[in-house]
């Protein structure tokens, strides 16, 4: 049996579909899903060897890799496509209005990266605004309650903020395809020891993706209770997540010009982290991308 860490992100909550629809069993994969209420703990648990694999974003994978931990990316679950956003209060219409304003977000996280990218694209830097470090939920709350002017959040908070009429998206991950790849990362040793289970797991994932595309509403119904939300609300989150099936996975796992290729995302992400002082050098993509399972599963 292998343990797979998951946390609250639509692309990962989808793993529960595999469990409930029996895909794991179908593909003979002994997988135990371990839920983490705090995402970053799941990243740490994998680094510590407490998990065999974990669902995590590229940006949070680079630091452990830089430490020399033997981790491999075996699957891309999704790219964010509108599910991450820089939300701003109603009085702010353009990036220019953002100058000198307070933005709440979790430092070094995807949201930070997204905001940084957004600012850059509009000729600004983080120095032009006031960044306040807080958890994503807190940032949403602070924006709704008018404590801050901008917040880096993902769904369901994007919808929450929109519905509260206290703010609107200024920049979303839809505007930057490939910026935010979400992965399944596994320990090398675990892959060696349980290769069959991993193969089955990847196959199960492709089945999940097919199911979600075919029955989005049924999918939302399965996933929503796991995060304590209503299915309707969750369907919106799912819509902002571009799940990666076999084809997209193969594209993402090899070098090329595709915006979804990890070989392109990695240098950009690393640049951000190096600038922030979180890592000192970029891990080589070829060293940590292992397309073999995807290849095997898509046969």
């Amino acid at each position: 049996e292998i343990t797979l860490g998951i946390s609250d992100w639509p692309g990962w909550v989808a793993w529960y579909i595999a469990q409930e629809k029996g895909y794991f069993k179908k593909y003979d994969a002994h997988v135990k899903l371990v839920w983490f209420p705090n995402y970053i703990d799941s990243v740490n648990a994998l680094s510590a060897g407490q998990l065999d694999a974990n669902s995590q974003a590229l940006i949070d994978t680079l630091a452990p890799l830089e430490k020399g931990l033997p981790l491999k990316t075996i699957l891309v679950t999704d790219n964010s496509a509108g599910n991450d956003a820089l939300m701003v209060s109603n009085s702010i219409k353009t990036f220019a209005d953002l100058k000198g304003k307070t933005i709440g977000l979790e430092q070094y996280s995807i949201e930070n990266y997204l905001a940084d990218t957004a600012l850059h694209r509009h000729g600004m830097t983080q120095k032009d605004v006031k960044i306040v470090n807080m958890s994503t939920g807190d940032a949403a709350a602070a924006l709704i309650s008018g404590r801050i002017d901008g917040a880096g959040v993902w769904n369901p908070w994007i919808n929450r903020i929109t519905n509260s009429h206290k703010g609107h998206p200024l920049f979303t991950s839809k505007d930057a395809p490939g910026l935010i790849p979400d992965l399944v990362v596994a320990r090398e040793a675990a892959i060696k020891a349980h290769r069959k289970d991993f193969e089955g797991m990847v196959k199960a994932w492709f089945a999940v993706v097919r199911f979600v595309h075919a029955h989005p509403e049924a999918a939302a119904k399965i996933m929503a209770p796991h995060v304590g939300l209503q299915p309707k609300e969750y369907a919106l989150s799912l819509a902002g997540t571009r799940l990666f099936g076999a084809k997209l996975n193969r594209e993402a796992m090899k070098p090329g010009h595709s915006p979804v290729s990890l070989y392109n995302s990695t240098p950009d992400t690393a640049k951000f982290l190096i600038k922030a002082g979180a890592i000192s050098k970029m891990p080589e993509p070829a060293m940590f991308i292992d397309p073999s399972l995807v290849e095997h599963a898509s046969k």
Partner: protein
Amino acid sequence: MSAIRETSLTPTPAALATAPSAGKATRPVAKGDGLWAVRGDLPRWQYVSIALFSFLLMLGSWWGLSDSGWVPQLFLPSPPQVVHRLAQWYGQGNLINDTQISIFRVTAGFVLSAAMAIPLGLYIGSFRPVQAFFEPMVEFARYLPAVAFVPLVLLWVGIGEGAKISIIWIGTFFQMVLMISENVRHVPAAQIEAAQTMGANRGEIVSRVIFRSALPDIVDTLRVTLGWAWTYLVVAEMVAANSGLGYAILQAQRFLQTGKIFGGILLIGTIGLIMDQLFRLLHRRAFPWLHRA
């Protein structure tokens, strides 16, 4: 913290005249000022009425404030909303399960702490070399922030129940050791010396006199630290939990379901109070001589 000492609960002349202990301290002093006398006496029914009134006042102002529209509901859900949230939580079938697992975690961490802290505290309080060896270390450790240990516990203990129990342990153990060794040091020297002159050896003094004599205070210490154990529940359930009251609160935090956060907090407070009362009952049952034979 401990209001209860083993001496002079019965006002014998000597005790009344000299012991500045709880038994004496709670006696009425002056009645001239009626209700507002310093240390005045209050009939039980009056005490309960005032307490009830204060509770209703709290509830009333909460309700009034949340309904006034003056404060957004997001900030302050109204009592019916909280109840509704709790009902919904119960309806989904998780509430009972969450409560059970949380009680298990707190109890397990607490029992583990107590099982280690009682012997250690007993020896620290009884033997100076043991004190010299452990006390400075424990004094240092009591400042350690449990939250900072979340990732370390994840590394060292893993993601199972052990991790949650460890956090509760970190939050309570060191305080417990210090308090129990303090309880042990309050055992009257005359009790120890009496045993010595009757020929008791070291082990007998520790087990038959010091431990027995300090036990009521130790139980009181346990009661107080159990309260702290509950305050660490949410931190404990940050570590790879997918059930429990703390987990539910964390989950609700993510989506700013203040109604559920309130419900969870109130639930934890209520369970804590119930456990506190159980401990008080245990105290009365186990130590009848302290509560008038």
